[in-house]
């Protein structure tokens, strides 16, 4: 294996580039993907897979359960009751003049969507290593399918929220505002932040399993740092200043403002949330794409 024997190999591969009609390949597999590689076209080609993965998650969830989709309702309902007893009856926290049950149910439903997006996305590599180790498809499909199937679940839970809300509306206990029209945007912001942070963590959990435990209880802590079970109006001074840096805070406040007529609507807060969502999503996708290429070697 002297250098001279390798010479023909190099020159013949060099010839490829200089030929008059350089061959155009359909696929080239290279050591490093482009830094800002976002395979949008490929994801579009695999859109059927996205739909089927969502269908699988939903179907598999309630097969062989007696109550079926009722489980989707039970979880927010029970949590709301516990919060009502602990925070409203025992601790006596303010709910901004809104009926406590409705206040907590709103918070719990929305927080549930965010935390599910975040936790499940962060476990993408670990829980799909079998699949990823055997077949290629654009890897971003899996976190996207998680966000989508969580959205289906969330929509079902919204029905419950709406029923409870309609009751309180009929007895004139809440006054909805026009800001409710922001709701679809707020939901997508929440999904984007959950997805983005989840993707960032997914890249690290392949190497450090410890982070999985951190995420589980980190999400709980994060809930207390976000105005989910208390209104932002309860805080003041330095604390409120700090709280308003939480990009999730304006989302919850705006939503409550629209639906319940209580809470703070701030355009600058929403701008900050939007900026953060774009940033964290971009960083998450970058980190995810970097990991995706070789994670199977380290997992």
């Amino acid at each position, binding site marked *: 294996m002297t250098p001279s*024997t*390798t010479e023909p190999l190099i020159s013949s591969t060099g010839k490829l580039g200089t030929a008059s009609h350089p061959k155009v390949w359909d696929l080239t597999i290279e050591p490093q993907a482009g830094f800002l590689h976002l395979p949008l076209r490929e994801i579009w080609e695999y859109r059927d*897979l996205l739909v*089927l993965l969502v269908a699988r998650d939903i179907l598999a969830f309630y097969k062989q359960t007696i109550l079926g989709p009722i489980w989707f309702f039970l979880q927010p309902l029970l949590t709301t009751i516990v919060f009502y007893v602990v925070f409203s009856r025992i601790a006596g926290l303010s709910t901004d003049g809104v009926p406590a049950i409705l206040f907590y149910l709103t918070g719990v439903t929305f927080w549930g969507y965010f935390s599910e997006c975040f936790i499940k996305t962060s476990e993408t590599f670990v829980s799909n290593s079998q699949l990823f180790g055997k*077949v290629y*498809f654009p890897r971003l499909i899996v976190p996207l399918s998680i966000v989508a199937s969580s959205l289906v679940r969330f929509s079902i839970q919204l029905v419950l929220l709406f029923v409870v809300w309609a009751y309180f509306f009929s007895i004139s206990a809440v006054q909805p505002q026009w800001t409710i029209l922001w709701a679809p945007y707020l939901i997508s912001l929440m999904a984007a932040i959950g997805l983005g942070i989840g993707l960032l963590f997914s890249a690290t959990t392949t190497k*450090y399993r410890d*982070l999985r435990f951190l995420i589980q209880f980190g999400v709980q802590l994060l809930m207390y740092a976000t105005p989910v079970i208390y209104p932002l109006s309860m805080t003041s001074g330095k604390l409120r200043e700090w709280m308003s840096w939480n990009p999730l805070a304006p989302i919850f406040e705006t939503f409550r403002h629209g639906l319940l007529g209580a809470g703070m609507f701030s355009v600058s807060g929403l701008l900050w949330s939007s900026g953060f969502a774009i940033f964290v999503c971009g960083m998450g996708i970058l980190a995810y794409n970097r990991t995706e290429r070789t994670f*199977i070697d380290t997992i």
Partner: protein
Amino acid sequence: MASSLQQTVKNQSVGTHDDESVAIRFDRVSKQYRLGQVGTGTLSHDLHRFWAKLAGRPDPFASLGDVNDRTKAIPKKALASGRTKGLVESQLHEDSSDYVLALHDVSFDVNHGEIMGIIGRNGAGKSTLLKLLARITAPTSGRIHAMGKIANLLEVGTGFHPELTGRENIYLNGAILGMSRSDTSRQFDEIVEFSGCAKYIDTPIKRYSSGMTVRLGFAVAAHLKCDILVIDEVLAVGDADFQKKCIGRMQSVSQEGRTVLFVSHNMGAVAQLCDRCALLENGSLAFIGATSTAVQRYLATNGASRVQFNRNAQSDFQFSDVAIHDVNDKPSNLFAYDEPVLIVIGYQLEHRIDGLEIAVRIHSSNGTLVFTTHRSHQINDPVPTGQRTVAMTIPSNFLTPGDYTLDLGAHIPNQRMLDLKTAAISFRIEETGSAFAQFAGQEFGVVFCDCLWRDE
């Protein structure tokens, strides 16, 4: 030998074929795995390691990953020969023992419409090559180019969900493999018919037998629309009838002008199917050309008499090594026909598993399965736990002269495969004057049988 080897590579891969007929081109592809330095799995371990490094102590987890002899030798050779230009410098560490080059500077072309076999021993780099082509992991250096759509079959039934019905799983599996829903719908009836599971198509597949699941998986895969089909030993599963069906399917695929890349240990199937073969040895391309020559060279490379397996952290049962000994308990893999062959199997069993069986299958060089033997046929006690060794003897005067390879398997019969090492090790029975000596080169079967003859 090294230069003649290079000569072969050059002629076959880049020199003689023009670009138009090339379906896949491997262009100086290398894949390096890090050993020891890989994350230990938990943050605390990595901090521990970092601390040890600061204090100047050796890496406390360095033994992780089990470097085996054959792979250890490569990176040093590679560094010494100066043929690592293709590798990014920063990715090469001075202490080469931390790294393994699973593939080293592999270049060859696969032509449009041919069935190309990839053969080589365990650890030669076959699976790595497939993983790169399947885009499951990225090469360390070099490029792979391909024309047309590639379908990879590293496993059948990937992504099957036990709770979903056969019908739902066909769609899901098809989508995972890159089929659109309308493609699947159009071929749905054919897929069901090919699988032979029509009756159970609306039953959750957790109720299927393992054979049915495999058939369903292969049926989906066989109907993939692709230009290049990459198959890894899927033929090793299923009954004989089904295997015949699979081979037929592969042949018809290539007759339609599609390219097939077939990776296997089964020399019988390779010889039957492949036009050309690439032989990998220790991560490098050792030979590429006519199948018969490649198979001969594969068999001639006398394997080690002891093979160690890489450890997988999470499994309950794993084979750690296998060795072949002679009657004096000395390692060997050449035997006289009238000598017994001792197979010594090392394994690690974490906890007692009820019904666990350890089995050995012996194949002849043309791929015929000669026999299968289970530990429980001789010993009724459950398999002892811990790091243990079990030995098995093939009696003398039993196998006829020739090359034999053996598969190791650990399973709960008809339920679960715990570990499987195909073509783990091989040995040769030499012609040392048996009754068939005069018929050397002719077919006379794989076993001696002392039948009773009588004149009436």
